[in-house]
């Protein structure tokens, strides 16, 4: 019971940090572009693409997770790139969606 209480308290604390998407990124990040099949995507398009890829890829195995802080998300997406054999474009688009 104590372990459950500890974990639930930890979750409640972490959840406040995790449930909300991160604040808008720095201007450097906001002005960035990524490629998609030879064409360029701006941040808004990358987020839209990321949302699509997020539901298609992550939903294959589990429920859609809540958003974590950006630096945490970068690690988790790298982990999932290896674990779920995500493509590089999937990883970039999902990371952009999950951190903005």
């Amino acid at each position, binding site marked *: 019971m104590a*372990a459950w209480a500890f974990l639930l308290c930890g979750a409640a604390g*972490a959840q406040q940090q995790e449930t909300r998407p991160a604040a808008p990124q720095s201007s450097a990040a906001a002005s960035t572009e990524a490629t998609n*099949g030879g064409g360029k995507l701006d941040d808004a398009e990358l987020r839209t693409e990321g949302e*699509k890829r997020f539901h298609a*890829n992550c939903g294959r*195995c589990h429920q859609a997770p809540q958003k974590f*802080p950006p*630096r945490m*998300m970068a690690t988790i997406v790298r982990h999932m790139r290896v674990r779920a054999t995500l493509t590089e474009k999937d990883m970039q688009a999902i990371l*952009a969606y999950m951190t903005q």
Partner: protein
Amino acid sequence: MRSISLSVGRRGWLRIAAGLIVLFVAPVVHAQSDASDSTALIKPVPVFSVQTGFITTFEGGTPHLGPLVTPLLLVPVGDKWLIETRGTLESDLAPQPGSPGFKGSLESNVDYLQLDYIANKYVTVSVGRYLTPFGIYNERLYPIFIRDLQTDPLILGIEAGEYGAGTGAMLRGGFDVAQGVEFNYAAYFSANSTVEHMESDRAAGFRAGVFLPGPRLEVGGSFQHLLQEERKNSFGFHFEWQPMPLPLDLRAEYARSYDGSGYWIESAYKLSQVPVWRNTMRHVQVVARMQQFFVNPEVVEEEGDAAGFTANTNMFEIGVNYYFRDDFRFVSSYGRQFAPQGGNENVWTIGMTYRVALPVGHGDIR
């Protein structure tokens, strides 16, 4: 003779080296042009996660209490490296005849402890102890907070082997092969390991799959050759589909080896489209799974069982899960197992699963 074999060996090494250069270095030039600056700005931080659950199972009327804790640690190093490890602490507490209460021992295991190097967009190299990439269940669906039904598929013994993990090296990756078509693969070699809590068999194998993100459909196949004892081959196929208009997951696997063959088919439906009690229904998931396992009678006769079974076994299960959040849920299921010679029994499960993930460091932007 020795000089000849050395010269052939040297030539072989040169060929391998040339192949590795082509495999790892050449694509980097192309990959660099695809790198996204926005994602590169985010410096990853180590992550510690705990997945835990308490599952009570009634098998043929006998209760089993199953507490389980699975710690996971991810340590990114630089832009290309990742150290990842997961362990399991679990127990199966059951009543013992003639003594009060529930008794059982604590079991611990290192599920994986691997170093990953993302060489380029096509190849990731993993070394260490890794989950056997055969089919989809062992590597992707096994964690307690992911699996929709808490009982293992009957064919898990074929696809994951005795230990569910290998010790050695693996090449893996996923990449686009055409617009809307992704290819993923994993090829591995495992050495025999007798290290306590980190055992593995000597084996080699691969898995390959094609994923269509548009219709959300994946199909693939796996093969493994055991390089010890009976030197048996195993192969299998997997299928996943999440049809776009429905909150429905369809998954299936087939596996065959010298021990026997079998399959499972599972569907999981989230009731978010039910027009009544929407706030409650959107948290509810109903699951159904059908599976069969056919033993090789020769193996049963020689060894007493085949992948843990003494006779052909069928099982049907239905379950209801309630998601308080994506990482915290109530799970329950009822299953009926059919096997000759008194193997018919009801299997009930009920429990809770939970996962927490915490950064080990600051969660800001570089």
